[in-house]
């Protein structure tokens, strides 16, 4: 009978303790990767600020625009109260915007403006048929997906004002619940610094806003 000799090339079988240590180590490293990279990039959750440092948070930022002019989100249009609280001054003139939006059957779209906290906007919109609508705002520094609803109803028109309760994007979700296209005519004026359109395909597009001087051009 030949003696059984150990193969010198064989790896030793790890003990249960060694395996437990390796598993615990893997879980710790996994947790670190989750917090530092995956959560900031995928969900916009950045508990330790690493995502911002590494530039990963930009992937989920609501301000990331696919096409159109950049939206200035700095504090340029913050109102300063007058001696009487009835009024406020702004460092720049207001802008205005007017456009026609067509919603295809069963489709939806969002259209919003960026305003600083306290800044005001006037709006009027009218649709060719009733649409499901939600007027709402998303704070710049809010969690991904967070919004506050100002009004939610089926409407065919809306005329009103908004004083932004927080700095962020504020506007409408319109949904065509019928089988025919619906046209919405929107006109606004306000101390906003950007307009953003978000389609149901998640495509984001910013729009140029009109300065008051263009009214002079129209007149001449």
């Amino acid at each position: 009978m030949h003696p059984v000799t150990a193969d010198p090339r064989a790896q030793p079988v790890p003990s249960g303790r060694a395996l437990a240590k390796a598993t615990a180590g893997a879980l710790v490293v996994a947790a670190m990767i989750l917090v530092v990279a995956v959560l900031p990039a995928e969900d916009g959750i950045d508990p330790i600020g690493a995502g911002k440092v590494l530039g990963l948070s930009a992937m989920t930022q609501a301000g990331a625009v696919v096409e159109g002019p950049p939206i200035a989100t700095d504090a340029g249009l913050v109102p300063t109260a007058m001696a009487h609280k009835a009024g406020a001054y702004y460092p720049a003139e207001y802008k205005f915007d007017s456009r026609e939006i067509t919603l295809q059957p069963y489709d939806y779209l969002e259209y919003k403006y960026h305003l600083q906290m306290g800044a005001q906007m006037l709006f009027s919109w009218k649709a060719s048929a009733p649409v499901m609508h939600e007027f709402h705002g998303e704070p710049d520094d809010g969690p991904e997906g967070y919004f506050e609803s100002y009004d939610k109803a089926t409407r065919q028109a809306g005329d009103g004002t908004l004083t932004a309760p927080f700095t962020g994007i504020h506007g409408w979700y319109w949904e065509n619940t019928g089988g025919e296209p619906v046209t919405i005519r929107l006109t606004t004026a306000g101390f906003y610094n950007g307009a953003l359109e978000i389609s149901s395909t998640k495509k984001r597009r910013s729009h140029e806003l009109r300065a008051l001087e263009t009214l002079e051009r129209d007149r001449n």
Partner: protein
Amino acid sequence: MRTLITLVAALLVAGTAGLSAHEDFRVIGTISKRQGSVINVKQRDGTAAVVRLDKQTAVSRDKKKVDTSELKVGLTVVIDAYGDSEEDLLALEIRIVPPIGAESAR
């Protein structure tokens, strides 16, 4: 070697967390094929979306709940789903609606 295995295992675990971060999609079109719990929808732009149904998928017609067996080829549907792409969606809600343009045809 142990360090490498530990790192690979860690990346695998961390990577699976990213799989849960899907996007919402709205699919509007006509059912072109149905095979069990998977339906193919031809959208208005001609592209096809592949949508899976599960036990949580809510199906309705005229705002009334109906069985998933009602989803037949040729029907116009509006689907709210989530997934990574239009080729791999899980339906949250499916509404059976009249064919697009039917209102003006009356």
